[in-house]
């Protein structure tokens, strides 16, 4: 028996994955555990390893197809097995490009003069309503035998191309949906009535698209996830936002000293983000309610401080996570950050790189954004929006002395179910203290 190659389930709540690309093709030899294709889940792109060694055969889905988990996507033929050993149903074309052959009502087709056929074949085709141009010739012209064989084949081609329950067929008929368009959630891809109803709902009514012209961008799974999670966050958690200004003079000085050290150790320069992450981690330890999740009838204060950094990628936004940041030095944070950003850019993030965050930092400073409010990344309870460092005049002492200082705006969005204004304010005050005099972190 060929080994079925199923779409694996990477995550507890994962239902489907999109095939990004096959790195092996039909007939290739694959080794056990060797990467065969890349798929994209709602969170990350993942390489899928071969479940066994053998010949890849019967690939059922192409690049870009969305496949429910546990569905057979191909088979691995073991030694001695051939394509003939594949389960029959799986040799049918993939459901995304079905071939429907009407067999019940042959419509008389005008014969084209260009078809080279014997007179008897032409007469027979006419009588049987067969389109001669569709009949393959065994020799240099279509013969009676060819037409007979063609008719016999037509009679054995199954009428059913999509497995579906009778109820699903009725609902599809009533709502004018082609069953081929519907992804079946039943066993072996069987379409059930609920699947058809879901498709009916998701198909936009033509009236809307016809009235005004627009380029239609289908949602990628990453876009869909962002949409769902942001909407959920904004609907479920009452956001409050508090802003502080930070004088970054000392932080800049500290960064200069760190960079000297980094240079000595042959390490990359410390970014302002790395410095902020370090101080945030320190402040989170002092303010456990900011590092928390709302959990029905309780609040979870997380033991670990896992800080996510919102990172723009071509497909949208990902939030790779730095784990246990409170135990890391700024050099390590900086290195991890660069590593994660590279992975994100190359679409190489693994599931563990994006899971388990307890707090998120979003930095738009590099675009000159002075100040903004971010939407909390559930199930976290707060997110810090970091603006740009701008040199501007401020009053620096009680003598009303004005100096030009590098100033930074930080805005904390917090879930009021967990975090009261005063709790958020204390956290921000700690951040200010840590950034304005980094030596405080030693205290």
């Amino acid at each position, binding site marked *: 028996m060929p080994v079925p190659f199923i779409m694996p389930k990477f995550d507890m709540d994962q239902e489907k994955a999109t095939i990004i690309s096959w790195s092996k093709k039909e007939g290739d030899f694959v080794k056990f555990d060797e990467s065969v294709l890349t798929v994209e889940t709602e969170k990350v792109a993942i390489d899928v390893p071969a479940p066994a060694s053998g010949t890849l055969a019967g690939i059922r889905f192409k690049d870009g197809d969305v496949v429910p988990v546990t569905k057979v996507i191909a088979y691995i033929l073991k030694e001695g097995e051939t394509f003939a050993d594949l389960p029959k149903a799986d040799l049918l074309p993939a459901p995304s490009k079905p071939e429907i052959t009407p067999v019940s009502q042959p419509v008389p087709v005008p014969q084209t003069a260009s078809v080279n056929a014997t007179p008897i074949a032409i007469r027979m085709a006419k009588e049987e309503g067969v389109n001669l141009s569709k009949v393959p010739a065994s020799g240099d012209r279509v013969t009676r035998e060819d037409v007979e064989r063609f008719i016999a084949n037509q009679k054995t081609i199954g009428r059913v191309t999509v497995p579906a*329950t*009778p*109820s*699903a*067929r009725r609902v599809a008929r009533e709502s004018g949906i082609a069953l081929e368009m519907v992804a079946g959630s039943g*066993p072996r891809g069987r379409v*059930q009535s609920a699947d058809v109803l879901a498709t009916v709902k998701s198909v936009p009514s033509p009236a809307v698209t016809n009235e005004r012209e627009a380029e239609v961008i289908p949602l990628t799974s990453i876009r869909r996830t962002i949409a769902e999670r942001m909407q959920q966050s904004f609907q479920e958690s009452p956001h409050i936002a508090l802003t502080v200004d930070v004088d970054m003079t000392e932080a800049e000085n500290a960064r200069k000293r760190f960079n000297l050290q980094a240079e000595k150790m042959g390490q990359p320069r410390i970014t302002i983000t790395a410095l902020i992450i370090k101080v945030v981690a320190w402040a989170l330890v002092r303010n456990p309610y900011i590092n928390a999740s709302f959990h029905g009838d309780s609040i979870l204060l997380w033991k670990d401080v896992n800080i996510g950094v919102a990172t723009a990628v071509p497909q949208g936004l990902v939030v790779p996570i730095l784990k246990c940041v409170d135990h890391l030095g700024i050099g390590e944070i900086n290195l991890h950050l660069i590593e994660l950003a590279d992975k994100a850019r190359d679409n190489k993030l693994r599931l563990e790189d994006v899971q388990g965050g307890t707090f998120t930092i979003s930095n738009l400073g590099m675009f000159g954004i002075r100040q903004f409010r971010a939407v909390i990344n559930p199930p976290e309870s707060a997110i810090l929006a970091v603006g740009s460092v701008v040199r501007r005049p401020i009053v620096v002492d009680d003598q009303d002395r004005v100096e030009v200082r590098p100033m930074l705006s930080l805005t904390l969005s917090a879930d009021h179910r967990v975090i009261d204004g005063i709790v958020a304010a204390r956290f921000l005050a700690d951040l200010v203290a840590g950034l304005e005099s980094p030596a405080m972190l030693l205290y």
Partner: protein
Amino acid sequence: MPEISYLEAIRQALWQEMKRDERVFLLGEDIGRYGGAFGLTHGMLDEFGPERVRETPISEATIVATAIGASLLGMRPVAEIMFMDFILLSLDQLANQAAKMHFMFGGRTTVPMVVRMPGGSGSGAASQHSQSLESVLMHFPGLKVVNPSTPYDAKGLMLASLRDPNPVCFVEHKILYKTKGEVPEGDYTIPIGVAEIKRPGRDITVVANNIMVMKTLNVAQKLSKEGIEVEIIDPRTLLPLDTKTIIDSVKRTGRLLVVHEACQTGGWAGEVIASVVGSPAFDYVDAPVRRLGGKDIPIPYNRGLEIFAIPQETDIEQEIRALVGGTV
């Protein structure tokens, strides 16, 4: 309403009808002094005398043949077959004569007789005393096959059977004899050929007869706590079968499971399923339609194997979960 057993409900029906209609009489093996193998006719000999509670030799063919003759001459006999398994001995009389006479004589004669027979396993009575042969009887047009699951249905259907103009096979279940339920003391009938929805539900239709109704009710109660609502239909009469009630139900739930104790192969579940998939309900079926029958083996004497041979609550639960959960 008084609570009495399934067995008492049948006795009450016989007793009351014998009081009401002097044409009704009983015949069978050991039904007089001994009161019947299960005690169903206990006390009836003393009440009605040997003319109306007639002991017979051990010959089922004779019992049924005598009943036919008596009914043709205007009596309303009730024959007891001690164990349903023995009905096979009288099948020529029942199937070739009783079932056909009304038709052979152009409707000018009727054969108003009831043949009672307890079927089913669960009493450790082994292969020749434990069968559920109701599917066999369903193959003879002219017979009616009545199969109650509760004391209430048993009395009402017995009274209806006693008043029916043609032969009724009244299939009882040994294990149900002791089950209790509310039964009106007075006279009432339940029409033959009408199913009852024993429990309404939206997720799946389960058609079950006699003891399987109880088992399915227990399963349904358990699954209801998880939000799975099972609709249970008790046909009550297997021939004629009330397919309309079943078809209407499947149109609502989209799923069908048929459960019976009779051996699966050739069992009446196939009849129900064929009726449904060939009906307009076909377009509402949203999962494979399935049956759960007894295993195709002679009922074993060994207690553990006897349990194994017929559907238990865990089997029914598993089937329902598979159909509702979409894993089959």
